């Protein structure tokens, strides 16, 4: 707890007071290169995130009922591993830190090793961790070049070219994907505070690894298309994560997939930043990189908040299944209010912290046409659609989470017996809720703090900020959260005054009207459960409108399904519904435009 708060203070202090110069050489490491630590803008930004998340989760761990003794040591080890990889100044320590974090997380996932599910999750987690290491290690090797210099300063001196650059890009993306892919398995099985640390800090760590490897170490001279794979991967994973979040009926898994959705948005911001940097659009690159950084920071804090709250719910209401919860807003008022803040922030609503990152991201996607190349412009338009779809889907999934767990009537006797959590746990949930409000109101200050990181990412440190408002474009569009909060407060005050004058009667209580439905019999103390929406029922119209999301299934069973689907669709054209016809038309239009314009747009 003290250590992680120390990280936060150290990072905030170094961002405020200027970064420490040089690197700290450690008297250890492999024979071919001394291990060294350094804290530049990028490291400090993500260390700040790790510190905030670590402080909240450690506080929660203090108040939560103690688990078995074997769950105690991996938690600080996880924190230390993450911090080590964030502050490493050479590839060896970076990988060592990642490995340490992966092992500790694996141990935490396997804490309940009596259950087959937890063993399975731990196994999948370790396989993915090994995959991540297997991709990132050769990527670092390629970056080190023939000289075999593994410290970052030397790596920057020899940026990769030709096929080596392409291989680094592919391996880095694959490795980061494997890092992020551990989340849904790890988060479902780990104890509450560890799951919160993972879901809060792991996406940030993924973004850090991507930014460090692909934006910093590969040098600023990479071409514009360099960002395109990242943009595409980010937008697609945002959509898939959000779709899967809509299907999940387990609170923690829902949050994990929503986290993948948010992470995808941040990754596409990073991809856009690289593309703009390659096209010499410095200001726009700053905008997109700022979007990625703000999104990562905001996401870390509100996801930690939501996962902590889900952990609190799981241990007082006895279940994580949405279909066994309900009505907790009465039993757990503080947790419910904090969760509501987190849910609104995760739905990217103004003026909370999710909206600032999403606004910057959408602004930079909207400016994607300035890369004067028709293929990229169409990709940016498609990314706009995907990002908007993902944002709306995540909002729907978040509403579903809050509506099922906290609103309505209890769905099980155990859930009805829930009570408010202990005082340290409450503080541990209040702390990130307050941080979410604060980060939402002052994104401008944050971006000014992020200037060194923007400098590392885009080569010029100028945050798109004026008077604490975020700005985009040369005829600037602005997002001013403080002004917005003032307007909201003033109109709220005006409305409250008017209502007090015109409508003074206090509300009375009566039985629910429910469209005239008869009162339930006595043996159903919480009403007829069938008259309440279920977790899958709440998502049903949306899933029906979108068509069953085939792509969101796990890849293990998708190949035979694809084959069956193709086989079943021979002679399908006359039987298309309007929606299928339209999506076919949409796809064909995009394809034709790309084909037609490819040579002309160069």
């Amino acid at each position, binding site marked *: 707890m003290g250590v992680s708060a120390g990280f936060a203070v150290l990072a905030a202090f170094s961002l405020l007071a200027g970064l420490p110069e040089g690197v700290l050489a450690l008297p250890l490491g492999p024979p071919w290169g001394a291990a060294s630590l350094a804290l530049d803008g990028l490291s400090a930004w993500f260390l700040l995130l790790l510190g905030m998340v670590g402080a909240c989760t450690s506080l929660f761990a203090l108040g939560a009922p103690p688990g078995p003794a074997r769950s105690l040591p991996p938690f600080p080890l996880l924190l230390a591993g993450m911090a080590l990889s964030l502050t490493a100044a050479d590839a060896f320590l970076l990988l060592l830190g990642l490995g340490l974090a992966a092992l500790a997380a694996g141990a935490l996932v396997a804490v309940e090793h009596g259950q087959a599910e937890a063993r399975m999750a731990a196994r999948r987690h370790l396989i993915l961790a090994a995959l991540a290491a297997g991709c990132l290690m050769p990527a670092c090797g390629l970056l080190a070049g023939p000289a075999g210099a593994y410290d970052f300063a030397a790596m920057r001196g020899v940026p990769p070219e030709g096929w080596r650059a392409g291989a680094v890009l592919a391996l880095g993306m694959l490795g980061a994907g494997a890092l992020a892919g551990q989340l849904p398995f790890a988060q479902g099985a780990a104890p509450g505070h560890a799951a919160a640390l993972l879901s809060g800090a792991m996406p940030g760590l993924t973004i850090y690894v991507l930014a460090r490897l692909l934006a910093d170490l590969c040098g600023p001279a990479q071409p514009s298309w360099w960002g395109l794979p990242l943009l595409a991967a980010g937008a697609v994973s945002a959509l898939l994560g959000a779709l899967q979040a809509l299907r999940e009926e387990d609170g923690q898994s829902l949050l994990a997939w929503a986290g993948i959705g948010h992470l995808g948005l941040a990754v596409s911001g990073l991809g856009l930043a690289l593309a703009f940097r390659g096209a010499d659009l410095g200001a726009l690159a700053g905008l997109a990189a700022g979007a990625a950084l703000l999104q990562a920071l905001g996401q870390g804090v509100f996801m930690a908040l939501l996962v902590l709250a889900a952990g609190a719910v799981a241990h007082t209401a006895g279940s994580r299944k949405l279909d066994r919860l309900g009505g907790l807003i009465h039993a757990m008022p503080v947790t419910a209010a904090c969760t509501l803040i987190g849910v609104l922030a995760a739905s990217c609503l103004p003026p909370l912290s999710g909206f600032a990152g999403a606004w910057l991201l959408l602004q930079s996607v*909207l400016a994607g046409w300035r890369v004067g*190349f028709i293929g990229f412009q169409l990709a940016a338009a498609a990314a706009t659609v995907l990002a908007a779809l993902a944002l709306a889907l995540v909002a729907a999934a978040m509403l579903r989470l809050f*509506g099922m767990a906290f609103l309505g009537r209890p769905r099980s006797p155990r859930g009805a017996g829930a009570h408010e959590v202990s005082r340290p746990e409450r503080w541990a949930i209040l702390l990130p809720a307050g941080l979410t409000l604060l980060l939402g109101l002052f994104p401008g200050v944050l971006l000014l703090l992020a200037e060194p990181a923007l400098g590392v990412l885009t080569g010029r440190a100028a945050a798109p900020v004026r008077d604490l408002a975020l700005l985009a474009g040369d005829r600037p569009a602005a997002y001013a959260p403080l002004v917005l909060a003032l307007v909201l407060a003033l109109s709220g005050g005006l409305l409250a005054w008017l209502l007090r004058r015109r409508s003074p009667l206090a509300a009375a209580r009566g039985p629910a009207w*429910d469209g005239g439905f008869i009162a339930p019999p006595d043996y159903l103390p919480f009403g007829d459960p069938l008259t309440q929406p279920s977790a899958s029922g709440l998502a049903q119209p949306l899933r029906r409108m979108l068509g069953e999301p085939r792509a969101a299934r796990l890849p293990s069973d998708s190949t035979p399904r694809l084959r069956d689907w193709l086989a079943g669709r021979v002679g399908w054209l006359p039987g298309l519904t309007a929606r299928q016809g339209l999506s076919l038309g*949409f796809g064909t239009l995009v394809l034709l435009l790309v084909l037609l314009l490819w040579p002309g747009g160069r």
Partner: protein
Amino acid sequence: MALLAGILTQLLHLALMLATAPLVLGVTRWLRARMLGRRGASPLQPFRDLDRLLRKRPVLAENASWLSEAAPQAGLVACMAAAALVPSFAGGMLLAPAGDLLVVVGLLAAARMALLLAALDVGTAFGGMGAARAMSIPVLAEPVLLLCAVSFAILAGTTNLDGIAAAFREGAPGLRLSLALAGAAMLVVALAANARRPVQGPGSLAEPAMLEEAMLLESSGRHLALWEYQSALRLTLWLSLLAALLLPYGMAPAGAGPFAWLLGLLAWAAKIGVLCLALTCFEGASARMRLFRLPGILGLALLLALLAAALLFLGTGPA
């Protein structure tokens, strides 16, 4: 001086939006009734309804939480803030620099979230059904809206509403096919966002068509008045937004005097009237479709918006 004019126009604008919202609702209802051959209630009827509802004592369900009390006001406050940011009769209002299209969309999403939370609060069948339906619509509508924003951003160079209106008013982009396509897509989004005709009849209490009404079954008195007022304000806001983006003519430019404001006011009233008439004609002439036809309609709008953006991309290429 400019600051004073900005403050004055901002206050006038907000008062105008707040005061005309029930009138817009009343006028559309009256026009619809006339079109169906009925006499119809006076266009001022929504004011009387709201006053009556405000004076009644609201009844809450036994297991309603504080959300049911707070959500109507929170939703209306978000909607009011959005309405303050959308230009109506004059440019250069005090909050014009903060009036970004995406921020307005975000505020409207916040207002919708308040409604959805209130619908789920009591845990009734209708509330859940309405919320499940209502949360699907923005998923389909927001991509279209954002794709339209791409076109506006290319044509006007910004997503600031005042900036877009000024750029279009000065005729910088001229009459363009892409603007027409994006405008058509925006109209569809506006219909979907206000739960209007192709899939939903306003005020219908038949289960297959219920959307907002299903979510409001548990609210009464003051809370119902606030929700209904919010719905009217949202309709006015959307009409005003369409007028500012697609028909920005006659709006008083920034720094103009009271005479230009008066002209702008008249032009705004005429534009809103025309849009109301168009809305009623459309609703009178079209039959209600199933809710699940909505993806098809919005998919068509998405195609139009994509075509608009692609045409513009052709124009911006280095060739």
